[in-house]
């Protein structure tokens, strides 16, 4: 009698796998208020919390294709895309701890980034406030 030939074993196994994945999915995903825009894996611009409060739109080009990124009321979303599927537009606004916005045809990724890793300092010399 081999366990792996029992259906109930696999039912329990896959149920556990699903539970684990669900928990992992709910875990907060890095980043601390900075939003980074990446093209082809390179950071092309970023916004800190202050900049996120200035409503505006910007158009990002890639090999003839375009995406319009719009910042309004502190959240970032893609409102227009040149590609036919428009998945990035359907993603809706970027949420902290949520999934990144990805436009594959234009190699564009917008996500929360952990700016502190590189930028945070332990102390500031000359700060007399």
């Amino acid at each position, binding site marked *: 009698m081999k366990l792996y030939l029992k259906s109930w074993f696999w039912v329990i*196994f896959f149920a556990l796998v699903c539970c684990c994945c669900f928990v992992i999915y709910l875990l907060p995903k890095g980043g601390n208020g900075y939003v980074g825009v990446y093209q082809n894996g390179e950071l092309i611009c970023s916004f800190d919390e202050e900049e996120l409060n200035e409503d505006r739109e910007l158009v990002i080009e890639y090999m003839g294709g375009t995406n319009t990124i719009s910042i309004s009321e502190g959240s970032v979303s893609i409102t227009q895309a040149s590609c036919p599927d428009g998945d990035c537009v359907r993603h809706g606004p970027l949420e902290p701890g949520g999934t990144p916005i990805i436009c594959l045809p234009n190699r564009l990724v917008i996500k929360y980034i952990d700016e502190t890793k590189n930028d945070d300092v332990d*102390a*500031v010399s000359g700060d007399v406030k």
Partner: protein
Amino acid sequence: MRKHMGRTACLIISMLLLLSGCGGEGSTGASEEFFAMDTYMRITVYGDDAEEMAEEAKDEIERIEALLSITGESEIAVINAEGEGDVSDETRGVLERAIEIGKLTEGAFDITIYPVVDAWGFFSGDYRVPDEEEIGELISHTGIENISISDDNSVTFAQQGMGIDLGGIGKGYAGQRVHDLLADYGVSSALMELGGNVCLLGAKPDGSLWRVGIMSPFDDSERIGVIEAEDVSIVTSGGYQRYFMEDGVVYHHIIDPSTGFPADNGLASVTVVCSDGLLADALSTALFVMGEDGACSFWKENGGFEMLLVTDDERIIVSSGVADFFQPEDGYITEVVSR
């Protein structure tokens, strides 16, 4: 069948462990935050007994403040009021070092400039611009050669109306004392922020270098870059730190001992990196007074410290010893001086 169950259990347990492993990591530190020496201070100690150690550090700074400040009943305050007075061995040591650095910098660092700075109102906060005559009169009563310290620790001034201020080294000295005290207690990692003076004991608890931002003299919400270092003091002096405006002219608190007016030699700020906190503190002021050329030649002639100068026209000049550990913010170009 048992075997399979075991494997599955292992898998599930290791998954759970992976999940729980994402929490915070160890390395606890304790901080003391307080006001002393007319500024805001924070001392963070890592390792065993961190809280106790931070408390000790705070006590040490308050002890030094009582010894060196120009107010209250301190030994220095008594000398300034009476024109003479007896000092402890410790105060004598600090005074002698101040005089020594004064000689080394040819008067660019001068603890006897006190009456002039006082006339500008930088101690009282009642800022005013003294006229040339008044400054000329006051400046004739300055100069470290007019201080004499006898063998029995008695300090006397050669002239009437003199005064000394150890504000230019007090924080640096306090930082160094706390550094040495904590090191004696066996602390291997601590961060002392004494109102813009940064004193580092050892490296960070994880063994990496501390990252110390250098304040921009042009915008108090920005930094000009970051210095990575361990076990040194990093002190920045700049006119932006205390100043007042009158008739559209900015007057800052770093008085050039040779003119009696705010130093105006093309520098916006000077950062000194040095394993001696007192020296770092004194030199940051002295180099600011000397200006770019003076500071560079002083650095070439004297070893034992590294420097970072920010000029009024927004150039950054770093000495070769710190150049590799300095990362400028975007938009700044650094020039390196070598010996």
